[in-house]
């Protein structure tokens, strides 16, 4: 293989493909980091909410609803689900002394149930919605499917929109205030309890949106929720809990590290490397790259 061949066929596509995967990871991690940073809740069932989103898209598409409409409809349908989960499961244990551990355990239990319920409703076989945008484009000799190109662009738009809401709107300010000091925010008239439920539901809605967007690439099956979870948690920790920009930078960086490590070292080492990065951050820079939401 000539160096030019290597660059054109191996290295450059590796970087570009890594970018598409990075966007996928960021989409899954976005909701997780908001729930984590804002509510201080480890949502172990985040992956299952992602799966619910994908299955909802599959079922509604079978009922004849178009992909573009699903992009809006599914996240909206996920919001009441998120609200209910917060009210019934998170709220009752929110005040307990060991909130981290308790909410982690409750959502872990929820994940077990959701996985089995999905299997009962939709069966155990893998399913896949058709790719909404077909074909591939060639950019500087690198082939990239049009849908992945679309995913990168939409992913960027979603991140910008979420960042705008959180950092630039009054709603976002209330959320950040409640995260920073619950009592202070409450005394300033922020409806803290509603903000909490809303934030959780927002995170769940984002997981659902990720499910709709990624289903055509990664297919749909009951245990799909476990797929991204370790990587998404790593992204949240490395980026800094609740930091949107942190999740973006960490997500893109980690997937690039993975892509190159798989090329240069061996695919087997990609997981240990990601995990090693997480450990290194926890040990040396526990606040992550960007620090946590509301505290930065």
């Amino acid at each position, binding site marked *: 293989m000539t160096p030019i061949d290597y660059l054109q066929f191996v290295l450059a596509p590796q970087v570009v493909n890594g970018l598409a995967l990075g966007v996928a990871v960021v989409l899954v991690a976005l909701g997780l980091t908001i729930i984590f940073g804002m509510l201080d809740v480890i949502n172990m069932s985040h992956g299952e909410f992602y799966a619910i989103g994908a299955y909802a898209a599959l079922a509604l598409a079978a009922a004849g609803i178009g992909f573009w409409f699903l992009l809006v409809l599914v996240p909206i349908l996920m919001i009441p689900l998120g609200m209910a989960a917060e009210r019934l499961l998170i709220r009752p244990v929110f005040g307990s002394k060991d909130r981290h551990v308790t909410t982690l355990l409750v959502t872990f239990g929820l994940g077990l149930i959701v996985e089995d319920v999905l299997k*009962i409703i939709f069966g155990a076989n893998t399913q896949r919605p058709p790719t909404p945008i077909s074909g591939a484009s060639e950019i500087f000799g690198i082939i990239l499917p049009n849908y992945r190109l679309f995913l990168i662009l939409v992913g960027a738009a979603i991140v910008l929109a979420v960042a705008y809401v959180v950092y630039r709107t009054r709603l976002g300010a209330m959320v950040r205030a409640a995260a920073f000091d619950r009592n202070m925010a409450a005394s300033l008239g922020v409806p803290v309890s509603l903000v909490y439920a809303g934030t959780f539901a927002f995170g769940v809605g984002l997981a659902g949106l990720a499910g709709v967007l990624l289903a055509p690439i990664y297919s749909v099956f009951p245990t799909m929720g476990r797929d991204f979870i*370790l990587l998404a948690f790593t992204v949240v920790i490395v980026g800094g809990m609740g930091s949107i920009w942190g999740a973006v930078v960490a997500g893109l960086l980690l997937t690039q590290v993975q892509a190159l490590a798989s090329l240069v070292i061996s695919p087997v080492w990609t997981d240990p490397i990601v*995990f090693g990065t997480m*450990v290194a951050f926890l040990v040396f820079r526990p606040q992550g790259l960007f620090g946590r939401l509301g505290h930065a």
Partner: protein
Amino acid sequence: MHDRLTQSMRASHLLALLFVLASLGLAAIGAATGDTFYLRLGTEALIFAGLALSVDLLLGYSGALSLGQALYFGIGAYVSALTLMKVPSFWLAMAAAFAATLIAAIIGGLIANRVRGVYFALITFGLAQVFAKVVYNTRELGASDGMIGIPVIEIGFGPLSVSAGSPVGFFLVVLAIIMGLYALTAYLLDTPFGRVLTALKANERRVPFLGYSVWRARMAAYVLAGLIAGLSGALYPMLRGFVSPELMFFATSGNAVISVILGGVGTLIGAIYGSVLLVILKSIIGSWTEHHLIVIGALFMVCVMFLPKGLIGFVRPRIEALLMRRPQAGPVLAEPATLTPIAVKSGSAS
């Protein structure tokens, strides 16, 4: 001497005694009817109870949730299996498993104890995942197939000898070992070391002012928990004759956490009751539906939300109340013999 902690510990000991008596009774019935399956299932439940005990030592006392305790269980099992295939000696296998988990737990502890709370949970989870993957890919360890062909050994106790193939004999050996580990843990928690651990959970920032090293206490608890898991794991290949990487997977760690939650966090004996309960539940639910995840997940959530002290938390206060009511509460109470009748009475009442 008789503060709340000692009192609740004592109530736990009563429940432990009750557990041993019930186990011995069932073992006698099993031996009399010539049963094999239930005795061996009970042995397996006890082995996993050891793993749950180690999870409770961390979660219930130092407040650290380990989502990867199966790592040490698996290391114990693999090292024991490898030893047994070379030399079929019980004591050598246990010693090798002890040494290997000691080293592994010290290394793991150095990494995991840099952080706390939920980060600790994530680190232990990741550590076990990565290690399980390495084993899964290592041909010398049987890779994804695991290793079969671990011989049925004779366990020598001085002049006596028990075969690991004897259902009732090996059940009693495992019962003795697991309850021994329980007793050791309970004893250590009653020493100043244990008080420091409990203080850590209550208020970590104040502990250094009392002149104790937070790090050292957490590390000691972590290594101890690793050893308990490793020694329990070492018993597994003796019972089943094989090891497989699934023993290190999250499902194994998760089951141990579920056992602890069902039985009662921070009670030690609850972990043991919880393991047995989980095995019974899985066996019963499993025979009428394959959707056991829903039932177990729901039960688990109910326990986390409404029964934070699990089954034991429900039973133990009643025993404590009984103990408190004894007017002559004094050092004499430490004599288990005087307490036995109460144990039996309260046990049957609840």
